[in-house]
């Protein structure tokens, strides 16, 4: 079973992602802020990280920088999940070493396939 760490401060968004992905066999972990996200990422070494770029305690970009600096998580797929406009979020995600970017609100029908693609690569 693939493990996905979701770093997201909005509880409604967190629940929505769980409801959409869990039926597809993913095990979801959750962190509501950046520091907890970093701790969980190093502790659990998830197969994929879904990262909200706007977190209350640190910028998502800073968090990606920390993960990408490590040997343990340097290659883990990180997907930015953000309400920022696509033209901003897309470039941000690439520059910071994310594997992709999905803008909110998510398309619940397409979302599982979008996530599956990151495991196929």
């Amino acid at each position, binding site marked *: 079973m693939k493990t996905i760490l979701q770093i997201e401060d909005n509880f409604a968004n967190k629940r929505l992602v769980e409801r959409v992905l869990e039926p597809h066999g993913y095990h979801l972990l959750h962190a509501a802020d950046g520091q907890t996200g970093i701790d969980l990422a190093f502790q659990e070494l998830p197969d994929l990280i879904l990262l909200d770029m*706007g977190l*209350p*305690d*640190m910028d998502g970009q800073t968090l990606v920088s920390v993960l990408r600096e490590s040997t343990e998580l340097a290659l883990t797929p990180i997907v930015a999940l953000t*309400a920022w406009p696509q033209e*901003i979020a897309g470039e*941000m995600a690439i520059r910071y070493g994310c594997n992709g970017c999905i803008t909110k609100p998510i398309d619940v029908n397409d979302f599982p396939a979008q996530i599956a693609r990151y495991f196929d690569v």
Partner: protein
Amino acid sequence: MKLLAASEFSLEDLTAAYNQTRTDYLIPMPMNPNRLHEYMVLYDVDLQRSCVAVEDRAIVGLGMLGLRPHEGWITRLGVLPEGRRRGVGSAMMDRLIGYSLAENATTMWLEVIKGNDPAHSLFLKYNFQPTRELIVARRPPRTMRSVSSILAARKINYLQHEEVIDLHCSRTERMNWLNAVATMNNVRRITAKTIDDDEQDPVHEVPHLSGIRVEFQNGTEGWVSYQATTLQLKRISVEVLHGDSTQVTADLLGIMHRLHGTQDAIVENIPDDDEWQGFIKAGYFEVFRRIEMALDLSSFDR
């Protein structure tokens, strides 16, 4: 709906209200209470003169006011979705302008994210005039690893907080509220706030400003100041003293990033000028723009 002083609310309540006003914002940037506290200290936000709009005991809007000698600054102004289109924003604007007049401010400032048309229209209605566009930019760690800037340097002076403040005081260009001398001075106050009164030990050490002043082999010269936290370089300011603004800016930033290779970097509210081109050469990219706006209060009745 009534307006209450923000000082009547806890930091946690204000943070929650602020985050709710931003849930569907163009660029959502949520905060936690620590971050909001730091924001208020850095930018001289006066909670007694900031307001919270309340309806049926629920917060529906928030507007904060920064006050410095002769100047006011409106910030964190937002209305929760359920309070919109009912005059809440206008009521808070009236209150904040009134407070600034009472404090003998002659100018009020604010920034609005470019593309946030409803807010921009509201501020124009209050006769705020656009003064310039300001850029928010970032640079991921290890973007460039050139040593050319270091090799080009003839002399590097490493600067402490007080020396950095002195340099900021000598700047002639008008700085935005976020980069003004008062803000830089306040970095020390954040540190002071984290001292536990009982223990007299630092609870969480917030670094002061650092800087480097560089003379290059070709006779050019300048300085860069910044706050280096464990994960991020912020409050970055560059001043070119001699030489081409773009190239010297890029060289100064190149040295700074050589010294702090693992940190993410953010620069806020810098003008779109030759120095910005130097930031681009050093690996920065624009994230979004803010429109700085000013309201001349000198002709208002007090």
